[in-house]
């Protein structure tokens, strides 16, 4: 076999299939046009392809497929479908593709809301203490309960902010501990 033929033989199939790059097709075509054996090789490839195609298509054409779709649909009704993991993945992917913008926007809003809440309740907010819950803590820390001896009566004074509550025990000698 000539060197050019050796190079041509593996490319005859792709040439026949229309899968050769333009630059290869040009020289393969030229060579096969001039070289009788390579021209015949190409013809044999085409003849084999046509013979196989005709044989299979003809055999398949005689098959009765009229009830195949019904049979498939009947089986499909009984089919449990893909595993849940596959279903979930597919659902997630579809949701993402269909509502990508909405999901991103909602996520952003949720993140912003979380940040806002953290900022509001954080004790480090601003230069010192925050106001809301910290005020309650402050109030608690300013509340005092003092046991008082009213001589004949035991008693106590509760001081909380601006409020003062005084207990006097008419009977007992002292404030219950």
């Amino acid at each position, binding site marked *: *076999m*000539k060197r050019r*033929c*050796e190079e041509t*033989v*593996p490319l005859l*199939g*792709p040439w026949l*299939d*229309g*899968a050769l790059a333009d630059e290869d097709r040009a020289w393969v075509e030229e060579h096969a046009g001039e*070289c*009788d*054996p*390579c021209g*015949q*090789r190409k*013809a*044999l*490839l*085409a*003849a*084999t*392809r*046509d*013979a*196989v*195609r*005709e*044989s*299979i*298509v003809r*055999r*398949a*054409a005689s*098959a009765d*497929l009229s009830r*195949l*779709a019904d*049979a*498939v*649909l009947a*089986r*499909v009704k009984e*089919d449990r*479908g*893909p595993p849940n993991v*596959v*279903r979930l*993945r*597919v659902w997630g992917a*579809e949701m993402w593709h269909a509502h990508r913008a909405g999901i991103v926007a909602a996520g952003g809003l949720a993140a912003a809301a979380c940040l806002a809440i953290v900022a509001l309740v954080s004790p480090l907010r601003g230069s010192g203490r925050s106001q809301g819950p910290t005020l309650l803590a402050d109030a608690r820390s300013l509340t005092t309960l003092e046991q008082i001896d009213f001589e004949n009566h035991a008693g106590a004074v509760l001081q909380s902010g601006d409020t003062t509550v005084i207990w006097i025990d008419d009977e007992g000698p002292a404030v219950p501990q």
Partner: protein
Amino acid sequence: MRGARRPPAPGDDSPDDTSLVRNARRGDAQAFRALVERYQRRVYQLALGMVRDPDEAMDITQETFVRVHRYLPSFKGDSSFFTWTYRIATNLCLDSARRRGRSERVEMDESDAEIEAHMDPPSAALAGPQKAALNAELKAKIDDALASLSENHRAILLLREVEGLSYEELARALGIRKGTVMSRLFHARLKMQRKLREYLGDEVKDEDEE
């Protein structure tokens, strides 16, 4: 190159695959039925060529579409619907062959010398190959030749020669690289030619004649 994707012809108002797939995914049974009816013959052709038994080919065709329905939600549309369907069908054919004990024949790449020998050109007696193809003896020979191929060689040959898949579609349908497509197809064709040469060409020219 003849591709597997065949949109409706001009003037044909039947929906294309994309809209049928979309509707079938939403549970539209009629859309799914339309897909089955559109491609059942071609899937059957592939299965028949692969397993060579009409009943088994019918079972594989049916199973192919059941699986298509089952996994339709995961079809991403990276390839055509039919290439994707072919991949399912091909895998089922290969599984079936293995179950029946027709285990994969070892695919040995032929040496250059063997390739050269097989690529001996036929004589000019190729005239009228179509006429020869009608010959009953040739049909039997084609069947034998296909049967002698490994499952992988048979699959790629049928997908290319009968179904006309492009090399890219073959790569997707068979899950192999494009380079492997070209190599595997080349060897599959060589083997077929070796079997069919005497029916498609009268005699073989001597290499030295060149």
